[in-house]
C-alpha cells in the first residue's frame, strides 16, 4: 500500500526547506569582507547549520513525547514548532553576534544595498552604503527575514524527520532514529543546494529582487522531494 499522506508531508517538508533558504540573508565570500549585505558564509552552510540545530531540538521533543504515550496531532505540531524554534535561536544568535563583529570590530553600519528604505524600520539605506561595496552587516529587514527562513527551514527538516519516524513506528529503536535522522539530513541538503543554485549563492532576504525567483525553487524542490519521499516511505516501512 502506498502511503500518500506521508509522501505528501515529506514533500512539503522539502519544499519548506527550499523556501526557507530564500529568506536567509547570506552574502557569500564578499560578506566576509564586509563587501555585501548578509552573513558572511555560504547559503547552504548557514541554512544547514540552522536546520540541523532544529533537527536536534525536534529529535529531543519527539523522543520525549512519543515514548511517553500516544502521539497526537497536537504533539506533532509541537515537535515541528520545537524544531522551528531551535533553528530560529541558532540563526538569530549567529546573526546577532555577526552583527556585533560588523559594528564593533569591522566598523560598518548594517545596511542593505538592494532597497533605498528598510521596509520594516523605514531607515534610509542607500546613503549608508560605503564606496565600492554592496552593503554590509545584517539590517533589521534581513534579520527578520533570516528568522522567518529558519522557521521554515527548521520546520521543514523536522517535518521530514517526524513523518519518517511515524512510518517507522518505533520511537525508541536506535536504528529507526538514526535512519530517519540521516535521511532528513540528506533530504535537507538536496533541497538547500537546489534552492541555493536558484539564488546564485547570495540573497539579502525577502526584499531582494532575487526573491522573485522563489516559484522556480518551489517547483524544483517539489519534484526532488517527491522523488526522495517516494523512495523513503517504503524504506522506513520495510525496516524490520
Amino acid at each position, binding site marked *: 500500500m502506498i502511503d500518500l499522506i506521508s509522501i505528501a508531508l515529506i514533500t512539503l517538508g522539502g519544499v519548506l526547506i527550499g523556501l526557507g533558504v530564500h529568506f536567509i540573508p547570506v552574502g557569500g565570500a564578499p560578506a566576509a569582507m564586509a563587501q555585501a549585505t548578509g552573513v558572511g558564509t555560504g547559503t*547552504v552552510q548557514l541554512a544547514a547549520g540552522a536546520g540541523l540545530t532544529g533537527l536536534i531540538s525536534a529529535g529531543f521533543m519527539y523522543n520525549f513525547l512519543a515514548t511517553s504515550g500516544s502521539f497526537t496531532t497536537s504533539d506533532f505540531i509541537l515537535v515541528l514548532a520545537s524544531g522551528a524554534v531551535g533553528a530560529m535561536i541558532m540563526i538569530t544568535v549567529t546573526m546577532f553576534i555577526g552583527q556585533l563583529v560588523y559594528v564593533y570590530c569591522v566598523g560598518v553600519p548594517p545596511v542593505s544595498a538592494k532597497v533605498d528604505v528598510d521596509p520594516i524600520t523605514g531607515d534610509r539605506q542607500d546613503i549608508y552604503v560605503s564606496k565600492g561595496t554592496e552593503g554590509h552587516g545584517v539590517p533589521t529587514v534581513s534579520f527578520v527575514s533570516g528568522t522567518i527562513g529558519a522557521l521554515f527551514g527548521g520546520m521543514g527538516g523536522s517535518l521530514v524527520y517526524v513523518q519518517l519516524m511515524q512510518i517507522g513506528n518505533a520511537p525508541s529503536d536506535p536504528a529507526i532514529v538514526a535512519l530517519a535522522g*540521516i535521511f532528513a539530513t540528506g533530504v535537507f541538503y538536496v533541497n538547500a543546494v537546489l534552492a541555493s543554485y536558484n539564488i546564485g549563492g547570495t540573497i539579502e532576504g525577502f526584499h531582494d529582487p532575487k526573491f522573485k525567483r522563489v516559484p522556480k525553487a518551489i517547483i524544483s524542490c517539489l519534484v526532488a522531494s517527491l522523488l526522495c519521499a517516494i523512495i523513503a516511505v517504503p524504506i522506513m516501512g520495510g525496516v524490520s
Partner: protein
Amino acid sequence: MSAVEGGPASGGLPPNKVIAIGVIGGLAGIYLTMLNQTFNTTIFSVMGGIGSIFAVVWGADAVRRVCSYGLGTGVPSIGMVALGMGIVAAIFGLILPETGILQIPAILGPVISFIVAALIGLVIGLLSNKILNMNIPIMEKSMIEIAGAGCLVMMGLSASIAGSFAFNDAILPSVVSTGYIALVFIGGAMTILHPFNANLGPDESQYRTLYVAVEKAAIIMVIAGFASLTAIDAVSAALTMLVGLLIFLVYFNKFMKSVHREAYKVVGTGLLPSAEELE
C-alpha cells in the same frame, strides 16, 4: 570561492575511462565483500573500502569537471548534494529486495541503488538546468555521475564496516544504529569534494587532484576499518586499516612529489619573491 570560471576542464585521463574505473571498481569492491559469506569469514570486508576508493576517484573527477564552470556557490555544496542523493538511493536499493514489495534477489541491491542514484541525479540535473536556468552544459551528466559515485562510496564504506551489504542483517545494526552512518555520509562527501577544492587554481592538474582523492579516500577507509572493530573481528578490521594506511602513504608521497614538481618553487623558508621576479 570558485576562482576558475567557464570552459570545460582538461586533463590526462579521459572522462569515460574514469567513469569506467569508478563504476566497475566500485561495484566490484562491494560485490567482493560477498566472499565473506562464501568462505564464512570477514576478511574480505577490505574490498568494500577499496571499492569506495575507486568510486571516490570517479566522484572527484566529476566534481572537477562540473566545478570548472562557475556554479555560483562553492565547491562544497555539490559534494553535499551528491551524498544527499546518494544516501537516499543507497539505502533504498539495499533494502528494497528485503522488504518483499517486489520479488528481487538480494544480490541486485547495490545495482538498484546505483540506478536509483543515477535517476535522482538526472532529475536534479534537469531541474538545475531547465527550471533554475543554470545553463551548465554538463550539469545533467555530472549530477548523474556524482550521485552514482556518492552512492557507491556510501555502500562501499558501509559494506567494509559491516562486512556485508545485507541491509537488515548487517548494515542496519552495525552502521546505522551505531551512528557510524554519519561518518560514512560526511566522509564520503568530503573525499569527493575536497580533492578539487584543495587543488583549485589555474595550474590545477588532474593527476594531482586524483592523487588527493585516492589518498583521502584511503584515510577514510582507515577510520571505517577502526569503526568495523565493533562489527567484525579484529584481524579483518586491522587488515582494512593496514591496507588503507598503505594506500594513503603511497599516494600521499605521489601527491607530495607532484607538488614539488609542479609548484613555482618549494623552499625551506625565505622572503617573498622580489618585484623583478614577479615581472
